């Protein structure tokens, strides 16, 4: 069996990707679909900014505006940021720890397809009677009374994609615990692996509360339960708690891997070991832990009372300490180094002041009594865009440039990359900096329009102009990606020249079995250690032998498709019952058929033995002689 890429027909490639269990290909699937949803969420953002460019605007109607703002937030968090991070986790983490794949390749594929079908289901709402319109937080009193199927799409879509996320999180936990190469102790793991590890643990504990909340809402809306109906003894504040017990750790699930990407970039392009590695690891774990202790700071104005507010205020402020440790460690990593400003490094360097600005407004927001003013205003909008765009999105853009060669074997154009960077950075600050002041000047968030004569005109216009810059920046990036792939100039193992971790020790892209021989890890930054000793390759930890590989499988796709189909049945049986069985008679059968498809494919998976296959030693050796780029 040869690993040299062969010319394949489109259908063969498509089938390969539909059935793949290879972490590198699943990474590409996450990247493409996450990128697609990022563009969709971006278009929604632009519509929001156009609507708010001038006072009393009627570019979109009030109801549609609420749908757009809801879908912007939901899409960006669940369908863009998380999958894009999963793309890099999948592409890089197994390589960084010297593994041949993740622990459960089949589950990895299942996680992706669940996310994908959940995301598609959610977005089909646009074409099937209207999208959800109660905000990404979907607070119960509003979402329970929301008409049409919008909220049903939200509940079912997130339930399906959330299951995928949970599976992915568990998979990474197991992978990192069990699959590390010889010598790769916990305290030698690269920071990106560490942050993936902690983020996965957060997923494990944060997603179940969301699942519970979504199920309660699902039963309320679709099967006549009354968990959130106050007149029937329900309580809507419970939803807020469940949502934020998930929702606050969620923002750390997003930011920690971005921290990890930046840590790799700072070390690489400063040609220097990460300053205070142990403290960085400890800070990451501590942020993850404290992230579960602070959810009620999203609820300071709910009326929980001063004791609860004070406790959550102080706990929230405490998070500033480990985050500050990280900021200083990154700066000291650069200090005394040899800094080269590649595109990824530009993003990393811009990240420090941008994220610091978002972090300090976070501490301001933690001050409960002052938060009564900030809460639900554009100040909050500015704050979370500073941390999510200034942290996560800059991290994703940096990661795209940094890991592109490892994922695709080509380098994105640096000149275009820098154009994207500057446009995006300027646009980002122009868009969101003024929003702090809009909030303090009395502009609530999630408003469809603002009226003239309230002093809000100028800053809103500036904000919209900034958003245009960001949109152009993204278009340049898309163009960059297209021309890079058309030119298809191949690169070697370590295209940045200063790679430090294991992923840079093997080919770009790596062969499908990753490491022919598992590498021996002799310390932090193992590839750097070998390079410093004049070696060009890692020292192998094992002789060349047969490699056990999993077979491709179409079952994850079918399993997810079944839930996708069942969701339509669950949703439209409401109309069937409302019409006394007159119309939508197909709803219940569709629900049952969908569930049967899923359960059936689970049964097939359980009953059919799939032992995988072996790549034989001789074939591996032949590969070497054949020579590869």
């Amino acid at each position, binding site marked *: 069996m040869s690993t040299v890429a062969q010319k394949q027909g489109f259908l063969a490639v498509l089938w390969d990707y539909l059935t793949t269990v290879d972490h590198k290909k699943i990474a590409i699937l996450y990247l493409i679909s996450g990128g697609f949803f990022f563009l969709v969420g971006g278009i929604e953002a632009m519509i929001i900014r156009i609507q708010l460019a001038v006072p009393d605007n009627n570019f979109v109607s*009030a109801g549609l505006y609420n749908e757009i703002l809801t879908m912007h937030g939901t899409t960006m968090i669940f369908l863009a940021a998380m999958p894009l991070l999963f793309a890099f986790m999948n592409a890089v983490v197994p390589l960084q720890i010297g593994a041949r794949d993740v622990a459960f390749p089949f589950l990895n594929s299942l996680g992706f397809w669940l996310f994908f079908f959940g995301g598609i289901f959610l977005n089909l709402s646009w074409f099937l009677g209207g999208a959800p319109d109660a905000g990404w937080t979907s607070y119960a009193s509003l979402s329970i009374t929301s008409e049409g199927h919008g909220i049903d799409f939200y509940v079912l879509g997130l339930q399906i994609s959330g299951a995928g996320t949970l599976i992915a999180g568990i998979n990474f936990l197991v992978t990192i615990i069990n699959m590390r190469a010889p010598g790769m102790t916990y305290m030698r793991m690269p920071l990106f692996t560490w942050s993936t590890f902690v983020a996965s643990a957060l997923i494990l504990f944060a997603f179940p509360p969301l699942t519970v909340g979504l199920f309660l809402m699902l039963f309320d809306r679709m099967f006549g339960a009354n968990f959130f109906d106050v007149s029937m003894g329900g309580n809507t504040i419970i939803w807020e708690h469940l949502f934020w017990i998930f929702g606050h750790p969620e923002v750390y699930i997003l930011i920690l891997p971005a921290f990890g990407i930046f840590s790799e970039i700072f070390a690489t392009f400063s040609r220097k070991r990460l300053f205070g590695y142990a403290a960085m690891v400890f800070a990451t774990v501590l942020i993850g832990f404290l992230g579960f202790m602070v959810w009620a700071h999203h609820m300071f104005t709910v009326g929980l009372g001063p004791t609860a507010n004070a406790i959550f205020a102080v706990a929230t402020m405490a998070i500033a300490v480990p985050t500050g440790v990280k900021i200083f460690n990154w700066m000291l990593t650069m200090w005394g180094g040899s800094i080269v400003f590649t595109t990824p490094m530009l993003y990393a360097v811009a990240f420090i002041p941008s994220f610091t600005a978002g972090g300090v*407004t976070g501490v301001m927001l933690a001050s409960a*009594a002052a938060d009564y003013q900030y809460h639900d205003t554009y100040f909050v909008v500015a704050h979370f865009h500073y941390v999510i765009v200034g942290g996560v999105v800059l991290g994703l853009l940096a990661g795209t440039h940094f890991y592109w060669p490892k994922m695709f074997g080509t380098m994105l154009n640096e000149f275009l990359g820098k154009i994207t960077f500057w446009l995006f950075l300027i646009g980002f600050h122009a868009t969101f900096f003024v929003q702090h002041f809009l909030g303090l000047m009395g502009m609530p968030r999630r408003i469809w329009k603002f009226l003239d004569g309230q002093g809000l005109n100028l800053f809103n216009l500036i904000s919209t102009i900034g958003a245009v810059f960001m949109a152009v920046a993204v278009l340049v990036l898309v163009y960059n990606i297209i021309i890079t792939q058309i030119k298809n100039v191949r690169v070697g193992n370590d295209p940045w020249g200063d790679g430090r971790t294991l992923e840079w020790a093997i080919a770009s892209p790596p062969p499908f079995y990753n490491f022919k021989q598992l590498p021996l890890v002799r310390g932090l930054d193992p590839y750097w250690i070998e390079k410093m000793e004049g070696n060009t390759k890692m020292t192998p930890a094992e002789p060349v032998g047969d490699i056990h590989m999993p077979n491709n499988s179409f079952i994850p796709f079918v399993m997810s498709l079944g839930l996708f189909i069942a969701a339509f049945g669950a949703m439209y049986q409401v109309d069937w019952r409302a019409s006394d069985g007159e119309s939508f008679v197909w709803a219940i059968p569709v629900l049952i058929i969908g569930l049967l498809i899923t359960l059936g494919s689970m049964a097939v998976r359980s009953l059919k033995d799939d032992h995988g296959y072996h790549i034989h030693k001789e074939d591996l050796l032949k590969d070497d002689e054949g020579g590869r780029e």
Partner: protein
Amino acid sequence: MIAALAFILSGCGEPFLSALQPAGEVAQRQYNLMVLSAVVMVVVIIVVSIVYSIAITKFRRSKVGEDVIPKQVEGSHTLEILWTVIPIILVLVLAVPTVAVTFALADTAEMEEVDEEGNRTALVIDVRANLYWWEFNYPDQGIVTAQDLVVPTDQNVYFNVIASDVKHSFWIPAVGGKIDTNVDNMNTFYLNFDSESAEEVDNLFYGKCAELCGPSHALMDFKVQTLSSEDFDEWVAAMQEAGEEESEPENETIARGEEVFGNDGQACISCHAVSPTERAGNSPGPNLATFGERSYVAGILDNRDPEESREENIKNWIRNADKLKPGNTMGAYNEDDLSDEDLDALTEYLMSLKVYTE
């Protein structure tokens, strides 16, 4: 630096709406916390900026040389302790006043205090938030109004807030932070309206709904009219009096308008009370007893202009309520529902609904 920052911030926004120009004790204490935290944070940003600027200028590869391999420093315990301890101190500087103010602003014990006769001494207003309008009920005074909250200056005013349909949030930015009007339970807090600041804004502050509540969330505005304590007492007396007596229509048009408003006409009265003492707490629409005195129609159309545009505003609202506030429960009345003549009469009648002013 505090002064400089305060100066910069105070230039922001309109005084009737901006949290940066505090117009009362609550807003002032919150503003002080904001400035304190902003100053602490500016210090952090300055320190970060200095270290950062030096690092990225001094250690460029073009300066240190292409082939230099920097020393692989593991870390520094001294530095790491330093940048752990200093942030802890900074956080404490902020945490202590935060906790103090949070407890102080939650202190509504005065609501329970009574005089010798057992009457409550503090002014308490029950706020009920509804899809896109606000009801303000003065339970101790036995009066109710809507959309225009009327309050006395320079004393604590206590609020019980609740929502009757979905969750909203009650916010008067210039006077103090918001509190959610939950559907589950009543929330309580207080505000204090400063008379000097009130003068600067012609005794009219803007209030907003701060929680997404549906299509017209953005337009769920209300206004706050401030009066001196004496004027407020007069206003209360006038309201109580108006609730007791039946007023005779001044002319035929108004009489016709009253007919249109009534059950034999468009039945507006089935949702809108016109007596300031009726239907507090369960009215499906705003009480219109003071409609002729309101500063705004429906909280969004400025009614302080000369007579003519007032009429236009009211007619515009009745004809186009569904467009002006999408999703509101009143709906619009077109020519088939309501002839132009009847609309004229109805408008005149509505403008005659006054209690306090002539």
